[in-house]
C-alpha cells in the first residue's frame, strides 16, 4: 500500500487530495502508477496524458518513471512549481 498525494491544479481537476493504492507486480514503479491512474479515464486521462507537465516525488524526492515504489512510500503528483 502506498499513499498518493495530489497538489494544486491536479488536486482540483482530479477532485482528490490523497488516496491509498495497493502495489502489485504490475504496479511497482512510478511509470506503472501513472499508467494505472491514466486508465481511469476522464480527468485522469487528460491531466496525466503524455506530454503534460506533471512532476512526481517519491518520499519527497523528485522522481521519474523508472523510480521504484516500495510498500508504505509517499508519492506526490503536482504541476511544475511556481513559488517565490
Amino acid at each position: 500500500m502506498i499513499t498518493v498525494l495530489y497538489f494544486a491544479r491536479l488536486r482540483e481537476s482530479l477532485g482528490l487530495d490523497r488516496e491509498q493504492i495497493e502495489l502489485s507486480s504490475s504496479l511497482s514503479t512510478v511509470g506503472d502508477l501513472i499508467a494505472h491512474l491514466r486508465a481511469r479515464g476522464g480527468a485522469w486521462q487528460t491531466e496525466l496524458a503524455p506530454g503534460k507537465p506533471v512532476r512526481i516525488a517519491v518520499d519527497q524526492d523528485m522522481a521519474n518513471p523508472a523510480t521504484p515504489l516500495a510498500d508504505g512510500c509517499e508519492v506526490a503528483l503536482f504541476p511544475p512549481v511556481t513559488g517565490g
Partner: protein
Amino acid sequence: MSVRVQTADFDLGEEILKLRRGNPKIGAVASFVGLVRDLSEGTAVSAMTLEHYPGMTEKALEEIVAEAKQRWELYDTLVIHRVGPLLPTDQIVLVAASSAHRQDAFAACEFIMDYLKTRAPFWKKEETPDGARWVDARESDDEAALRWDSTNGYND
C-alpha cells in the same frame, strides 16, 4: 541555516539583524524580498493563494541551501516563504546570505532564489477579473536555474 514556511508576515530588518548580529567576520549581507504584484501576465490580480507540500517544501529548501553552502563561503543563510492567502504588495519570500565578501553573498542569494523557483513545491493561484487561475511555470525560471549548472560554463 534557517528555513521557515509560514502564513505569518516577516520583518526584513529584524531577520537580517538576527542573521548578522554578534559575528564580526561578516562583511556582506545580500537579501531578496519577493512581493505580490497586482499584475501577472498582463492580467490584474486582486489576491493570491500559495499552496505547498508540507514536509517536502522544507526538505527541498534545506537541500537548496546546503548546495549554496557548498558552492560559496557563507556564514549563514535564511529562507522564509509564506503560504496561504496574500494580497498585492504583501511579502512572499525572503532569502538572505551572509559572508565575508559580497560576491559570495550575492551569488548564494540569487542561486537560492533561482533554485527555489524551480525545485521547491509551492504553487500560486491568482484571483483575476476572469476568475481564479493557477499560475503557469515560467520558462525563464528554468533558464535561470540552468545557468548554475557547472556544465554550461556560466560560473567559469
